[in-house]
């Protein structure tokens, strides 16, 4: 019976991991940029939700939109103003650039918000949900449901809207997309901004579960790495599967080996997977 509970915990965690990673995966897949800023974007989203709740009483679930829009704007400016200049350069250059930007943004957050851990304590929590032998905290389940909803919305956006089709076109072939009249620079910026939106929204959801501090950005970034490699690059379903798988693995890993080994386990898994199947569980071979 305990296994059912662990699996349920893992799924709830996994839904959030999927939401954390899907923006990172999109940016990597379309722009071919490893966005080190992603973890800091998530934390910034958490801060928006925190201050929204502390000062204006806005429930973090509604802050998703605010946090998302704030980060959308920030992401658009960063990509259009800075990263677009070197977006076709080798990985060493783009990765180093986003690392530099991350140092600046993270340091700015440390100065502005200090390194103190903060937490959103809801005045009216949803209580716990009981399904047979499994107990789940209601707020977490709601956060997971919203996370999955956001992920599905992103999937539909990429499938059905004209901007989404343009993003997919740029991902498939940058030159051909240019020839078909797609404004690639604009699409780059929109893609990066959508990635930042997802990070901000995920951050707002996470604010009710994890403590908030600029120091957490690396943890979230590490999760995004693992989920992306697990699920395969640049595909929304890949990130979804990767997130759920990682959630379950971490959940069972902490039960069997102790929670202090959960990170080692997931990183070890990442290395093994890169060794045997670099294209991910759902990835296609030969696609970069």
């Amino acid at each position: 019976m305990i296994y059912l509970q662990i699996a349920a915990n893992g799924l709830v965690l996994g839904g959030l991991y999927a939401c954390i990673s899907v923006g990172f995966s999109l940016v990597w897949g379309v722009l071919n940029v490893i966005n080190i800023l992603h973890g800091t974007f998530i934390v910034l989203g958490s801060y928006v939700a925190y201050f929204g709740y502390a000062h204006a009483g806005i429930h973090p679930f509604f802050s998703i939109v605010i946090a998302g829009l704030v980060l959308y704007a920030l992401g658009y400016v960063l990509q259009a103003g800075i990263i677009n200049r070197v977006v076709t350069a080798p990985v060493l250059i783009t990765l180093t650039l986003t690392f530099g930007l991350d140092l600046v943004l993270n340091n700015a957050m440390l100065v502005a918000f200090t390194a103190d851990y903060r937490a959103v304590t809801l005045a009216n929590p949803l209580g716990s949900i009981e399904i047979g032998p499994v107990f789940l905290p209601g707020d977490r389940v709601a956060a997971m449901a919203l996370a999955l909803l956001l992920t599905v919305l992103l999937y539909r956006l990429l499938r059905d809207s004209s901007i989404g089709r343009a993003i997919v076109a740029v991902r498939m072939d940058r030159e051909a997309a240019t020839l078909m009249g797609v404004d690639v620079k604009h699409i780059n910026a929109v893609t990066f901004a959508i990635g930042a939106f997802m990070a901000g929204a995920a951050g707002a959801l996470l604010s009710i579960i994890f403590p908030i501090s600029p120091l957490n950005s690396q943890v979230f970034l590490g999760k995004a790495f693992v989920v992306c490699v697990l699920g395969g690059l640049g595909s929304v379903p890949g990130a979804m599967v990767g997130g759920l798988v990682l959630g379950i693995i971490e959940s069972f890993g902490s039960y069997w080996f102790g929670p202090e080994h959960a990170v080692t386990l997931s990183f070890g898994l990442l290395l093994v997977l890169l060794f045997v199947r670099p294209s991910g569980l759902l990835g296609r071979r030969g696609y970069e």
Partner: protein
Amino acid sequence: MRTWFALFVVALALASLPLTGNNYLLRLATTVCMYAVMAQSWNFIGGLAGYPSFATAAFFGFGAYTSAILQNHGAPPMLAWGCAGLAALVFAAFLGGAILHLRGHYFAIASLIVAEMLREIVNTMPGTGGGKGMNLPILKISIAAQAQFFFYSMLALALFCTAAAIVIHRSKLGFGLRCIQQNEDAASILGVNTYAYKTAAFSLSAVFVGMAGAIYASWVNYIEPPDVFDVLLAVKPLVMVLLGGLGTIFGPALGAVILLTFEELVWRNFLTIHAAALGLIIVVLVLFLPNGILSLIRERFPRRERPR
């Protein structure tokens, strides 16, 4: 010949530094030598072979902990440093075998993850002090003598590393690595054993860094996981190399001097924003000076063609 002469002059100038009797300068010079070792080492895999390795922090911490554990079991410092270098070499050879078949982003992420994983392992492993960190035996000589001892040790390592770089740049290995950087598939078809070459470059990028980590551990007497597996230790070397110039011999050392000067100025004056300052220098560097400072000098003073 000119290169060796330049190295000799720099070595002589640095070796006479303790004569000034300024211990602050001596500490800075020791750090410059350490940075130079790390930048020069990264240049083997990142500059010559063109593989964006972020494993430097892993090798540094691996060397530091290997040496610390050995010294706490009674090994003399020099022997422990040598063993740390050797251990880092073996570790890199195995690791390289596992991840060097990856390219681009996947390689970058895999190498970045290694230090994180080692940090978590050290945090929970018995015999390393875990998160509390580890003390090292203190040398029974005066403080001033210690400062000189560690300076000369680090200087010797930096010179040895640079000498190795000079030899390798001119050897078949260096040529093969440059071929891999330009077009790995073509190099492979032309008969370069790319796997062996890349593994050699990766191991070279580990051995000196491992020893630098070991000397650093003895120098500061205390190490802890977040300190020696710091991700900045993986990023600074490539910043220094980008500053000085990719794939050059003296570029990394020059980059080390520039970065440390800059760091020291920022540390002194704006302690709370030093990370942002480093970030800013990275952004400016990448956007406006991707070929390093040596390239500016070369543009202004082009080298005369040698008469044939």
